[in-house]
């Protein structure tokens, strides 16, 4: 159970990571760390040092340091890969790990996350496959999002009735329902099904929602604006007005709403009212498209009110603005072509880390970035920029590695020289310390002790003084024997016997303790010998293995150098391609802008000519 809990916890961490939310991760259960190096990777991961955690996990796995937490580590690894956009590898790991023994909710969350990532990257079929592997229901909000994703697939296949039915299963009040319904309405309108499309939009537009409710309120405004534009296109300005009145004034869409409101009044012939909206819009940011359109709409309304002179003035001003804008756009396009948009966008990016959640938060305040703000805010552009940034980071890292390899080569060389210098000294050391002779002496001593024990040779372990005294008694005994032929020595013999008795008694009494001491000393000798032998073995191993290790390290360094140089060449090409792609997308966006500005300029010129003609006709009529 504990294992399941641990896996469940780490899976939640992984999913939170993949979805870019580190906040939710903090609510999960604490993970049972049983491998130190798994814990070390977690330590980096929890501090958002995801790249370091990734390297730690891979290295620890390669070094066989992940045993009990290996599955947890693999899940974490897959999550980190996912956050770096390496979803192919992440999927491979997930698929290996997720089996019938994995708790259902963990399995479901993994498939759900993979489905989202795959769809974001445009891999529709594999996203649908991942969705189809979810069993039962997900937690509420994820379940709603899951239905939205399924509905999106149905819309793409043109199964609109099924989509509408499916969307009904989303919880009341969930923004996913409104996103789904809005996309369905758009699809219906694009297919020319006006009645059904408008019905869907009207349902969204009529939703009673708190103006501060965020997403739903924004979708409601979008629906009302789309409805108004649809009605305007069908020459139904009154209906358009009704829906435009529902759009919040402070909303991001208000520029478009003001423009459309002006047109609704204009179509009804209410030019003065139209002017109120358009003139308000005209005061806004001149880089916005709706504002630029208003620059043409205002003189159009003035001309309709026969204010030809004012109309001409406004047309002239509009032409100046358009010309200035066109010039600026040309300069910007040239500047992007001659330089690097991603580099200029990343100019203030001082962070050296490769955080999986990175996104450009502060756009450098340059004329180009102001025009491209909408493009830059798009998820795909951010993804592309993040890839560029990561490749740039990896390139720097590889270059650093190349420098480090040089240092290691020097280090190896120094170690090799030092090793060569020490060989003769080590060999002479081996010679001077004859361990075999030492061992022989030790064995003799041990055998001696054994004999002493077997024979109860109490004086053999007695102190030297006692042994001397015993020898003295032996000598005296012999002398007394010689003297006994010449004189009476009984008295001396008796005294000698007493002394020997005392000596023997003492030696007997202390025999066990002395033997134990002698054995202890032998034990110490054994320990010292073993240490010596281990050290010598270690040195011998070193002597034997070191040259091989030098060769191995040398080979590894050469191979790493080759691999790094190969990848650096690849990275340069890919960086360039990615840079060109981002530049191209930006230029395309600016070209589009240039295209409609040219149309506006042409329209302004034609309108000036028309207004002159009309003014002349009116003058001659008077």
């Amino acid at each position, binding site marked *: 159970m504990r294992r399941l809990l641990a896996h469940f916890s780490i899976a939640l961490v992984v999913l939170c990571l993949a979805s870019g939310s580190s906040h939710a991760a903090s609510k999960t259960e604490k993970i049972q760390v049983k491998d130190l190096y798994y814990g070390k990777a977690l330590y980096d991961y*929890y501090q958002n040092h995801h790249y370091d955690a990734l390297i730690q996990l891979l290295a620890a796995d*390669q070094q066989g340091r992940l045993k009990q937490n290996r599955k947890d580590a693999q899940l974490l690894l897959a999550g980190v890969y996912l956050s770096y956009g390496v979803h192919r590898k992440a999927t491979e790991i997930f698929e290996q790990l997720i089996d019938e023994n994995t708790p259902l909710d963990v399995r479901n969350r993994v498939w759900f996350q993979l489905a989202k990532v795959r769809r974001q990257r445009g891999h529709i079929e594999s996203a649908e496959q991942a969705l189809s592997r979810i069993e039962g229901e997900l937690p509420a909000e994820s379940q709603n999002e899951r239905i939205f994703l399924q509905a999106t697939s149905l819309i793409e296949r043109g199964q609109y009735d099924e989509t509408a039915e499916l969307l009904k299963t989303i919880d009341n009040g969930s923004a996913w329902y409104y996103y789904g319904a809005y996309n369905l309405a758009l699809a219906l309108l694009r297919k020319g099904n006006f009645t059904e499309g408008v019905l869907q939009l009207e349902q969204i537009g009529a939703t009673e929602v708190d103006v501060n409710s965020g997403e739903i309120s*924004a979708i409601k405004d979008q629906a009302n604006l789309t409805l108004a534009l649809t009605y305007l296109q069908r020459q139904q300005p009154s209906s358009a007005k009704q829906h435009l009145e529902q759009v919040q004034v402070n909303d991001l869409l208000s520029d478009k709403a003001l*423009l459309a409101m002006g047109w609704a009044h204009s179509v009804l012939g209410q030019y003065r009212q139209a002017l109120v909206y358009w003139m308000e819009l005209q005061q806004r940011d001149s880089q916005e498209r709706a504002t630029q359109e208003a620059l043409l709409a205002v003189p159009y309304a003035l001309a309709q009110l026969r204010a030809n002179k004012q109309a001409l003035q406004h047309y002239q001003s509009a032409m100046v603005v358009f010309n200035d804008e066109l010039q600026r756009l040309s300069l910007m396009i040239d500047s992007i072509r001659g330089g690097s948009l991603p580099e200029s966008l990343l100019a203030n990016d001082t962070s050296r880390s490769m955080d999986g959640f990175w996104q450009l938060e502060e756009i450098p305040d340059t004329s180009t970035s102001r025009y491209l703000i909408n493009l830059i805010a798009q998820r795909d552009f951010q993804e592309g920029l993040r890839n560029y940034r990561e490749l740039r980071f990896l390139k720097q890292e590889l270059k650093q590695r190349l420098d480090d390899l040089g240092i290691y080569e020097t280090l190896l060389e120094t170690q090799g020289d030092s090793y060569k210098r020490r060989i003769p000294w080590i060999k002479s050391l081996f010679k001077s310390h004859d361990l075999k002779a030492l061992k022989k002496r030790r064995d003799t001593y041990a055998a001696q002790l054994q004999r002493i024990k077997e024979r109860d040779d109490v004086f053999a372990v007695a102190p030297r003084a006692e042994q001397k005294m015993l020898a003295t008694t032996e000598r005296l005994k012999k002398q007394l024997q010689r003297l006994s032929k010449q004189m009476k020595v009984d008295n001396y013999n008796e005294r000698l016997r007493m002394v020997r008795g005392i000596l023997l008694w003492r030696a007997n009494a202390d025999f066990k303790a002395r033997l134990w001491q002698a054995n202890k000393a032998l034990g110490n000798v054994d320990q010292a010998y073993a240490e010596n032998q281990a*050290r010598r073995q270690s040195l011998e191993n070193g002597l034997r293995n070191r040259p091989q290790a030098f060769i191995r390290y040398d080979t590894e360094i050469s191979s790493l150098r080759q691999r790094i140089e190969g990848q650096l060449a690849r990275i340069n090409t890919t960086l360039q391609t990615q840079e060109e792609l981002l530049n191209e997308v930006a230029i395309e966006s600016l070209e589009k802008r240039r295209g409609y500005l040219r149309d506006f300029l042409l329209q302004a010129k034609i309108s000036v000519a028309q207004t002159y003609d009309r003014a002349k006709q009116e003058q001659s009529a008077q």
Partner: protein
Amino acid sequence: MKLNTLFISAVVIVVWLAALSGASAAGANTTQQPSESLEADIQSLKEEIVKINRDFFILEEELLFPANTQVVVFVSVDSGVLFTLDSVSLKLNDKNVANYLYTAREGKALERGGVQQLYIGNLRNGQHEIVAILNGKGPQGRSFRRGTSLIFEKSDDAKYIELKVVDSAERQQPEFTIREWE
């Protein structure tokens, strides 16, 4: 008049298209994707470079801290309720080898189960002594300073030692343990 009507249509259509494209981005992502081959190339590049870094990391460790002399000291916190770790000092054979002051983020990472590698170095085979002094805030925010030590035997294999702070629910006090890993 004909031109003006055309102009209205053109403007309305322009706005209409702008509104539609802006709206669809809100729900489902349909904007430009990099080509599949470029994306696959970026993925495989990242994978390759990550592998290079892994191999480099291993080589670096083997070169600088060979297993036969390697000693690594880790710090972990079991719960972190009764003790907040502020700093740790480490002595190896009476020589100061590490002093570390924890940031709030590092402390949190430890409390959530992360394990810090406090020290990595080289030691010759034989007996050694390690002494760690841990400073922090104990129960009721009291300053807490506690030492712990271990005598260990270094062999030809790498030696891993873990300093662990454990909350003792029974004594309502933090406990500090030090242990060797196989």
